[in-house]
């Protein structure tokens, strides 16, 4: 572009590079540090010696974690929840988005459904009534409480709907002349045409369900039923909060026996690995495609 190599502009460019690199390191360090801690021996961790690389490299934490039945049980619950939610969310979203992408002339009643959806998006019963209702249904301690309370991702449904509106009418008309019913039109034409937006909402569903700990916290009163993130919160954070709130040494010691820092770090690393595996996809669809998110009605 503009080649202006005065001293001032050179200094500015160097400073820019330094700031950007520092910003990168600032984001990287806390995450990398956890990885280093998880591979370090516990004395090094207690002595706060671990920064960028493991001290006294060991796999002890991971071996211990491997034997931690509750961790893997919670891991399994989270996987089950993500899979069930993904399947249910996708089916409901495309099924709702298609009729809603019609005009009121094409589908009498479309505006009423759309209104109901928007009301539900803008207004909800809040934590307590929702909890009591789930309890009434007898879903407490069941993975279905986590799945079904999020069965209809409204915002994402509207996003898919907006994408469907942009699909050329001629494609659909041709199929209808050939005798296809609306379900066939949806499956054979709309879904294959909408891969980017469907990938986006699928990833939202996966990441949201994997990361959520709040629902586990309220709908799973029994420790053994906690999904992974709620489990990590329960084990790791409770202890930390106890420490910050000034609990006595004995209380802390008894609580600390449950889990060491190195072991906790291994738990965090394993809990994040699934997200790292799909991170290239997240970058492709949720970052590059972020503009799809600008919903219009």
């Amino acid at each position: 572009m503009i080649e202006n190599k005065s001293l001032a502009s050179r200094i500015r460019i160097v400073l820019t590079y330094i700031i950007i690199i520092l910003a990168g390191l600032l984001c990287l360090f806390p995450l990398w540090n956890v990885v280093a801690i998880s591979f370090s021996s516990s004395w090094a961790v207690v002595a706060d010696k671990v920064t960028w690389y493991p001290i006294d490299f060991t796999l002890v934490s991971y071996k211990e974690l491997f034997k931690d039945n509750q961790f893997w049980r919670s891991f399994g619950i989270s996987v089950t929840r993500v899979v069930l939610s993904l399947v249910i969310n996708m089916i409901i979203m495309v099924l709702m988005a298609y009729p809603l992408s019609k005009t009121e002339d094409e589908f009498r009643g479309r505006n009423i459904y759309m209104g109901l959806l928007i009301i539900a998006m803008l207004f909800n019963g809040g934590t307590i009534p929702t909890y009591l209702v789930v309890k009434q249904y007898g879903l407490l301690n069941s993975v279905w409480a986590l799945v079904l309370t999020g069965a209809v991702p409204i915002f994402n449904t509207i996003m898919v709907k907006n994408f469907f509106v942009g699909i050329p009418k001629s494609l659909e008309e041709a199929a209808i002349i050939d005798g296809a019913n609306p379900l066939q039109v949806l499956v054979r034409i709309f879904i294959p045409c909408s891969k980017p937006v469907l990938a986006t909402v699928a990833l939202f569903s996966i990441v949201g369900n994997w990361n959520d700990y709040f629902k586990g916290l309220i709908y799973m009163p029994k420790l053994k039923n906690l999904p992974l993130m709620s489990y990590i919160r329960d084990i790791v954070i409770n202890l930390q909060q106890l420490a910050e709130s000034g609990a006595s040494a004995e209380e802390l010691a008894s609580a600390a026996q449950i889990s060491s820092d190195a072991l906790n770090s291994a738990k965090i690393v394993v809990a994040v690995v699934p997200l790292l595996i799909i991170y290239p996809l997240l970058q492709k669809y949720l970052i590059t495609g972020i503009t799809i998110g600008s919903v219009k009605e």
Partner: protein
Amino acid sequence: MKKTKYEKQVRAKKSYKTSQRYYHLMLLPGMIFLVLFHYIPIGGIVMAFQNFVPSKGLFRSDWVGLKNFERLLIKKDIQELLRNTLVISIGKILVVMVVAVLFAILLNEIRHMRLKKGVQTIVYLPHFLSWAVLAPIVYNLLGMDGMVNDVLNALGLESVNFLGSNKTFQGTVIGTYVWKEFGYASIVYLAAITGVDPGLHEAAAIDGASWWRRVWHVTLPAMLPIIVLMLAINVGNILSAGFDQVYNLYNIRVYETGDILDTYVFRVGLEGRQYSLGTAVDLVKSVVGLVLMLSVNGLSKKILHRSVF
């Protein structure tokens, strides 16, 4: 000829009717779940006007009118809760915006493509991680015997109780939130900068405008619409200061500055089983949020000619 036209009409009518039935059926599963898990709980809001007792249920609990709301007003808590919520959420919105805009402007200057891509990959990552795993990391770094305090001590400075003192807690919440979100927030601003006509920059440069002046007079004005839009989107959530984060970071020592509406609803309403009181707080929060959102949307339609949602 005429007959076929008639037949065609009949067929069109028939297909119109079948497709109507299909459309309703397609919406059915979603609507059932919305009724079960969305509209029925909305009905449960009436407990904000009751002295709700679970064993009596919604239909036999005593009606108390606005007593729960009066109780809120009398309690000093509500002022504190509102103040904490607003300070934390407005702080988050503004600081993330400023940092993200600056970051996007600087990142756009980087010509070394691999460095740029690498930094982007790293700074976007924390957005996708849950506070359940980030909070322990925050404790590791900012706790009383965390790494930051070790560094401070090594420099001969006193330890800072980032998470356990009412002086620093709100700053810690805002700071760690900015750390998590500035990268992801910068994406839209970066896109806005990329959209600026390079000719404008060149013209300004030929006129002798320094880099700073070009940023101020060319880049920032080009970003203004998206900045306003982002602010508008956030206004509707102003009473949500981030349950996920605060609940994982706070402790009883910092309730005075750290307790927000959402954590109060959970702790006092749900865990403390004061269902009616908690629902009343939630209701106030939703109504205010809704009113704010609708008015911002109206304003945005009028001024920016663009609907926020």
